[in-house]
């Protein structure tokens, strides 16, 4: 699944705008639902600050 590096994340919400699974939520901090995420990688590519990474679905 896809994970966020909180130190790099600027909380801009861009990744949320593209996630087809509605798997990302920004509350106090950014969270990704391991249940909903399909590791499609769309959010990883769009992040302006390279704060997201995915293991290609190995853990799913």
């Amino acid at each position, binding site marked *: 699944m896809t994970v966020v590096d909180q130190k790099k994340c600027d909380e*801009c*919400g861009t990744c949320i*705008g593209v996630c087809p699974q509605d798997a990302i939520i920004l*509350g106090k901090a950014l969270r990704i639902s391991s249940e909903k995420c399909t590791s499609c990688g769309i959010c990883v590519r769009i992040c302006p600050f*390279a704060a997201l990474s995915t293991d290609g679905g190995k853990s799913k």
Partner: protein
Amino acid sequence: MSDAANNKYDIIVVGAGPAGSMAAMAAAEAGRRVCLLERKSKAGAPVRCGEGVGFKGLTLSVEPRPEWIKSTLTRARMVSPSGINVEIKNGAEGWILDRERMDAGLAAMAAEKGAELIPNTPVTSAEKLPDGTYRCVSAETGDAREFTAPCLILADGVESRLARGFGWNTALKPGDIESGAFARVKSKDIEPDCCVFYTGSKAAPGGYVWIFPRGEGEANVGLGVIGSRCRPGLPKELLLSFIAGRFPNAEVTDLHCGGIPVARWTRPLVKEGVMLAGDAARQVNAINGAGIAYSLYAGKAAGAAAAKSIRPNGTCDHRTLTEYHRTWAKNYGKQLDRSYALKEFIMSANDAFLDRIAESLSKEDPAKISYLRVFMRAFASKPLLLLKAFKLFK
């Protein structure tokens, strides 16, 4: 849900950006009980915006306070991929805003009109209840809070996450979003009244770099990269290397990122008692990424329709809400549709094509090329540039 307070309103507005604050202000002004829920502790900070706006677009919706305006633009320059300059000089047409002050000011104005501004409140879910009203829940801190109302305005910006629960598919395709990064730069090299744009696949693939002077030797410098040509961290890398090359040894602060929807505006804008406004409804000019004027306008129209829709018995007349969609479609819908069509066309063009446009424009009288025409309205109404573009394309 433990002992969440049972907060009942006529209208709930989610997001205190320009769209949400205008909506809350318009609805509260009409005497409705309104709450304005904002995730951050303070509306407007940090700024995620170039802060450029045309006079007309801003003043159509709100009378700006003097402290919202940082500088007035009188000139613009476009730099093509190979470095051809196109000068545009036809008098003052736009401002650089202080969005931190403006956004906070708009939220405060909504509160003065009677809206209840509730910061530190990320709405984590929104749903329709069996009685036809809507419930928003903020459940981040353990002590979940609930808000209910017969009418809900979603102005949650580029994320537009909450709309999905009501059947809208707001997830943007990578080709319909710009991934952006920007910073404040202090340098003696900044021209005080001139905004500068750089295009080309080296500077910003499928987007452009902008320099917006905000006075006192400072500028907003930023760029957008089209999502379909982005890779992790590319906007930040390109920005930092642009700044290092163009403003060596400058003081760089406030490095932030943000996403700009460059999609078609969402249709319909209203479903039953729920409305979308601003970036959440993708009400953005797809050519240049400008959204401030549109979100102000849309928010105000949505808030006015919401106020009108509340019946004396406290229910919401859903048909009245659709006035918002019609007002928007009539006044801005076509213009933004044209911009979207043109965006699709420009995206298919290569650097050589942009150079050819620049070359032909660079021979024009700078006073006769309208900055507003080219950027703020993005070729939309008097398509001098479009005409040339198509001629060159043949």
